[in-house]
């Protein structure tokens, strides 16, 4: 049974310089309790995709089309009020930077309680405080009784992210979207936060959609991975397959960069030549072809025709290369 | 010398808003207008509230011994401060005739004119119902001597006339006023001003033929000693007239209400009609004019203190429907330029200065014909008895424009007759003292230009405005600006004061002029003349004499324009004060 089904999601931002096609026809499914990762460089459309799930893309001119079906209900077609009831209750979100994600004017206890109260107006003040205390305790804040009345600026970055997680999970949502939850944190804290997410997921039974550029993070906690490039999914596979047998040349490049650079914090993948394309003036054909070592071998097809995502081996891949060559690529990867 | 109201001195904060610009070509001209219907009593009813709109922040003072502004002398005198004598409350020339007020008659003088006595009527009461006594009058008069309080604000006739020895106090008198006087000092005053029952006697050190005019000044008004609050008396003066001060707050308002204890039977001068007079202070001048033109609501019952803005004169005098609400007339002031006869001792140079001067340009700079007419006398036209236009110097032009050619000719004569003064005027230059104001900057440019055309050099010497008169009192320039209005309807308060020996405002240093002796003798004669018609003739001759000597150059007899609300009645110009008879104003409808 599918919990969330995204169908042909397209998001365009109108800007003074022209339309930015951030997401160009993304489709995927998420099952209950499943952990899915969306991986890509900055500008790949992964965060926009994640935000679309809760209609959190803001701006003067945002155009969204397609469907985001939560248990069959299209979030994109809902009224504002209906979406509001989904937010925080059925689908919750963790943001990238815990330093700015918390409201500086209110105590953390109040902010956790508020997240619960929005969807449980019947809850008493006392109840809310109990819940906040319990949440703080669960996400591993020491001395929650004392710290519940403190303000965000009195906490470290890691602690604040725990509080953000506590807020997200206070309503036991069906889906937890974590947008780069560890990027802004110290390396030592990163693992703790990921562990916490995994543990909380186990407790609440939520599905997790993890948005990251960090393949190390992906390997640690997810089951399935989607690789995005220039607003499209270029590869989708089980984590085990993707890491062992990547099919798309871009995925292969990504993996190589992790292995060779050992620098998980670099957003730019230096083992892939060139830079990610401008979303306003995308290259014709396959958007990756200017950076792809195999583009010349297909007699110009890569620069004219956009490759569709198709089943290749155990996963899917969007590349014009024939299946056998895609499957063989990994052989090449292993050679070195 | 009466002082101009503060209102005229205050620079308008706001000077915009649509003024009707007729242009000078087809502009409305100034001319005598007496107020039409508003000057009559047609349809007047008793009661109502009269409003006085003004841009002034307050009255210059309500303290009778400190008042010296023409309009205020009339306004307070007609409402809350009665005097021994006052003026007939009618329009026109008759308004300058003296009538008995608190006194039973116009006073009795000794043959040598050094003793004057007045007897109080029966039944004159203060606002608390108590009787106005002779002692109250004497006490009031004594306050002028207390310069540490009254600060030379009011006229100083009590000091210069009363027979009290000279002394070291600031007033040069041996009597320091009621507040500081020792018993002996007080005795000096009590000898000069004595009471016998209801009769008050003034002993003077000089003969004064018109002392009964002098006592019409509020400086001679009574003040009950028990009510005196020294410097603060002007905040709530005690009334013996038909109105009393209910509240007075500078910057806000002065409310005069009817004094229930005023005894109408004791008063033949005042005929109050309204219940209440409210002065609204600190209004924007533009707003005042707009309100008066709109004439709606309470503004129908309003008059203005301070005149009409120059930009609105065309509108007011170009609209015939306002004929019954507007006035245009002399305000009693004459402006002039004093010459220092000690340093400019040469008559020809003085004549040249007059001939070269562009009075027309000066008047235009001041605001044009509405501001006044070219003066032909130092006596204002309002002093109808004593006024006669003098025959001006040969060569001066009626339209005020300069006669440079004649001026150069005079200078050439001067070169022969008095080479020293000629050299001073053409080479060193003549020092011109004047108050340091923006308007004077404009005037000086004209002076320097037009006299320069005749070869006369002018050195500009601006003096800080508040110190101006005190400064020229100590150190006179070659030319000095000034203005004057009579203290009462007699040229005795003009010509001897401006040009005579010991005159209160004579900065001409003209006693060394060979022509002085003749003037002084004739002036003494005129002062002592008790036949009013004969006296007037002498004043007219003296004025001609002064004009011929060019001790001063007359500037303009200044005019004022005003407008009243459509319900206001009795708004005639009361000549001695150059304003309405405030206490007698009534409302129709």
């Amino acid at each position, binding site marked *: 049974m599918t919990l969330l089904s995204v169908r042909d999601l397209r998001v365009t931002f109108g800007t003074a310089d022209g339309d930015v096609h951030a997401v160009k026809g993304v489709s995927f499914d998420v099952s209950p309790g499943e952990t899915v990762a969306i991986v890509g460089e900055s500008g790949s459309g992964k965060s926009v995709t994640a935000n679309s799930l809760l209609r959190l893309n803001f701006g003067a001119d945002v155009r969204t089309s397609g469907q985001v079906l939560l248990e069959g209900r299209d979030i994109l077609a809902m009224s504002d009020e209906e979406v509001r009831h989904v937010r925080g209750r059925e689908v919750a979100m963790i943001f990238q930077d815990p330093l*700015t994600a918390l409201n500086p004017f209110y105590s953390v206890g109040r902010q956790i309680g508020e997240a619960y109260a929005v969807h449980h107006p019947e809850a008493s003040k006392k109840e809310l405080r109990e819940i906040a205390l319990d949440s703080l305790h669960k996400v591993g804040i020491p001395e929650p009784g004392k710290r519940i009345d403190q303000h965000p600026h009195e906490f470290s970055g890691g602690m604040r992210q725990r509080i953000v997680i506590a807020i997200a999970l206070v309503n036991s949502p069906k889906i937890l979207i974590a947008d780069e939850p560890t990027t802004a944190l110290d390396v030592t804290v990163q693992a703790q936060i990921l562990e916490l997410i995994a543990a909380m997921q186990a407790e609440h039974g939520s599905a997790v959609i993890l948005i990251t550029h960090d393949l190390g993070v992906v390997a640690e906690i997810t089951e399935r991975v989607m690789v995005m490039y220039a607003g499209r999914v270029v590869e989708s596979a089980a984590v085990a397959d993707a890491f062992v047998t990547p099919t798309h040349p871009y995925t292969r490049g990504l993996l190589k960069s992790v292995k060779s650079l050992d620098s998980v914090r670099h957003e730019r993948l230096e083992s892939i030549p060139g830079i990610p394309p401008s979303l306003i003036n995308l290259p014709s054909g396959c958007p990756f072809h200017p950076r792809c070592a195999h583009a010349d071998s297909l007699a110009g097809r890569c620069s004219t025709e956009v490759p569709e995502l198709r089943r290749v081996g155990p996963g899917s891949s969007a590349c014009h290369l024939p299946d056998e060559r895609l499957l063989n690529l990994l052989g090449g990867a292993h050679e070195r | 010398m009466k002082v101009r109201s503060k209102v005229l001195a205050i620079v308008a904060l706001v000077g*915009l808003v649509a003024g009707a610009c007729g242009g000078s070509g087809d502009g409305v001209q100034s001319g005598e207008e007496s107020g039409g219907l508003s000057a009559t009593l047609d349809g007047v009813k008793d009661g109502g509230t009269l409003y006085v709109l003004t841009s002034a*922040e307050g009255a210059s003072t309500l303290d009778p011994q400190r008042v010296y502004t023409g309009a205020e002398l009339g306004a307070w005198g007609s409402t809350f401060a009665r005097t021994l004598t006052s003026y007939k409350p009618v329009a026109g020339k008759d308004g300058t005739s003296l009538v008995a007020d608190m006194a039973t008659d116009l006073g009795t003088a000794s043959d040598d004119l050094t003793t004057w006595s007045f007897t109080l009527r029966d039944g004159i009461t203060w606002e608390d119902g108590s009787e106005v006594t002779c002692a109250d009058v004497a006490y009031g008069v004594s306050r002028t001597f207390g310069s540490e309080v009254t600060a030379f604000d009011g006229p100083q006739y009590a000091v210069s006339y009363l027979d009290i020895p000279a002394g070291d106090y600031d007033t040069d008198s041996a009597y320091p006023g009621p507040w500081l006087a020792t018993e002996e000092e007080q005795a000096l005053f009590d000898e000069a001003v004595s009471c016998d029952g209801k009769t008050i006697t003034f002993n003077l050190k000089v003969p004064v033929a018109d002392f009964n005019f002098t006592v019409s000044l509020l400086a001679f008004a009574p003040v009950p000693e028990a009510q005196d609050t020294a410097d*603060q008396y002007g905040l709530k003066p005690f009334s013996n007239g038909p109105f009393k001060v209910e509240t007075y707050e500078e*910057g806000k308002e002065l409310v005069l209400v009817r004094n229930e204890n005023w005894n109408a039977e004791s008063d033949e001068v005042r005929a109050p009609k309204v219940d209440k007079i409210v002065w609204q202070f600190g209004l924007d001048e533009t*707003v005042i004019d707009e309100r008066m033109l709109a004439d709606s609501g309470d503004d129908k019952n309003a008059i203005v203190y301070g005149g009409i803005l120059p930009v609105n004169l065309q509108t007011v005098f170009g609209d015939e429907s306002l004929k019954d609400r507007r006035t245009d007339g002399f305000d009693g002031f004459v402006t002039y330029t004093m010459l220092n006869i000690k340093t400019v001792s040469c008559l020809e140079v003085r004549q040249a200065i007059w001939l070269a001067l562009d009075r027309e340009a000066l008047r235009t700079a001041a605001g044009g014909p509405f501001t006044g007419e070219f003066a032909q006398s130092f006596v204002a036209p309002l002093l109808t008895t004593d006024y006669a236009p003098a025959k001006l110097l040969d060569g001066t032009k009626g339209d005020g424009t300069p006669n440079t050619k004649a001026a150069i000719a005079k200078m050439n004569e001067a070169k022969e007759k008095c080479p020293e003064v000629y050299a001073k005027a053409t080479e060193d230059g003549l020092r011109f003292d004047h108050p340091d104001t923006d308007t004077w900057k404009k005037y000086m440019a004209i002076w320097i230009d037009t006299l320069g055309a005749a070869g006369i050099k002018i050195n500009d010497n601006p003096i800080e405005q508040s110190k101006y008169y005190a400064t020229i009192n100590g150190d006179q320039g070659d030319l000095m600006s000034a203005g004057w209005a009579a203290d009462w309807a007699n040229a005795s308060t003009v010509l001897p004061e401006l040009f005579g020996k010991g005159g209160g405002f004579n900065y001409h240093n003209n006693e060394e002029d060979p022509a002085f002796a003749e003037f002084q003798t004739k002036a003494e004669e005129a002062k002592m003349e008790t036949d009013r018609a004969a006296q007037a003739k002498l004043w007219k001759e003296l004025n001609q004499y002064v004009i011929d000597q060019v001790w001063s150059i007359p500037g303009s007899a200044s005019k004022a324009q005003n407008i009243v609300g459509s319900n206001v009645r009795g708004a005639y110009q009361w000549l001695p004060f150059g304003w309405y008879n405030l206490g007698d104003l009534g409302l129709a409808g």
Partner: protein
Amino acid sequence: MIFFVLRRSFFAIVLLLIVSAFTFVIFSALPSDPAALTCGKNCRPEVIESNRERLGYDRPLVEQYGAYMKGIFAGRTYGEEGSSIHCSAPSLGYSYDRHECVTTLIASTLPVTASIALGAFVLWMVIGVGLGTLAALKRGRWQDRVATAFSVIGVSLPTFFLGLIFIMVFVIWTGLLPFPRYTGLTENPVEWFMSLLLPWFVLAIISAATYVRMTRNGILEVMNEEFVRLGIAKGLPRRRLIVTYVLRAALVPIVTIAGLDFAFLLGGALVTESIFNLPGLGKLTLAAVINSDLPILVATTMVSAVFIVVANTVVDILYGYLDPRVRVK
């Protein structure tokens, strides 16, 4: 926190002492001579000199300042025995031009200015923050354009011009309102309200303009903050989000500026008071300038300084309460 308040108050008092001394020195250095003003037109230079001595203007400045400060705490007697005037503490001097103790004058004008300031302040905060919020929430729509146009016009309109237009339109041409004539709140609340309506609006419109812009920009800035997105992601209703998240954050800097603006206004709304003929501190000061009435000028300057220093201190302390990040532990 108590320590913080005490320390701030101490500095405020020191600052006021410095300001008072400075004011005293500055005004004494002005070319206008207070002694010359005590004497009428017939005055002679010797009289001015003797008045100078009598009023103490010939003493060293330090001595004059000392007497002045002493007067504030102990009261002071002016003039000579027999005709002297006593001004009880706190005495800020005696005006020989107005014949009143300066403290009395301030006490009668301050309520007027306070009435103007308070009403205008409330109005301009409502208009400014209201329109600014509307503009931000309806960014790019006609409401935004109207609010922006309002703020451009408001900023560029001179107060006296707007005041005159108001008088012309509402009083003279249409007669909708009577000409403002100040009445004390305790005397007649209705007349008090009516007399202040126009000045409130004039001041509010002029001042609100800045607040429209500040609020609009502040809100738009805060709306981009991550914590606001988290609030949306929590499912907070829009209205609650705007009030408790966006406005709460956007108003902190505005409150600071508003506090100072209010204090400044308490020092006298000079032009507004003049146009509408309201006998407040501003008019008192203006008249004192015209008449070179030094005692009043020194006092009104000091009173204004007190308001600004006090407001500064209050705003500082308030800021600690409003923004937990700067709160002193």
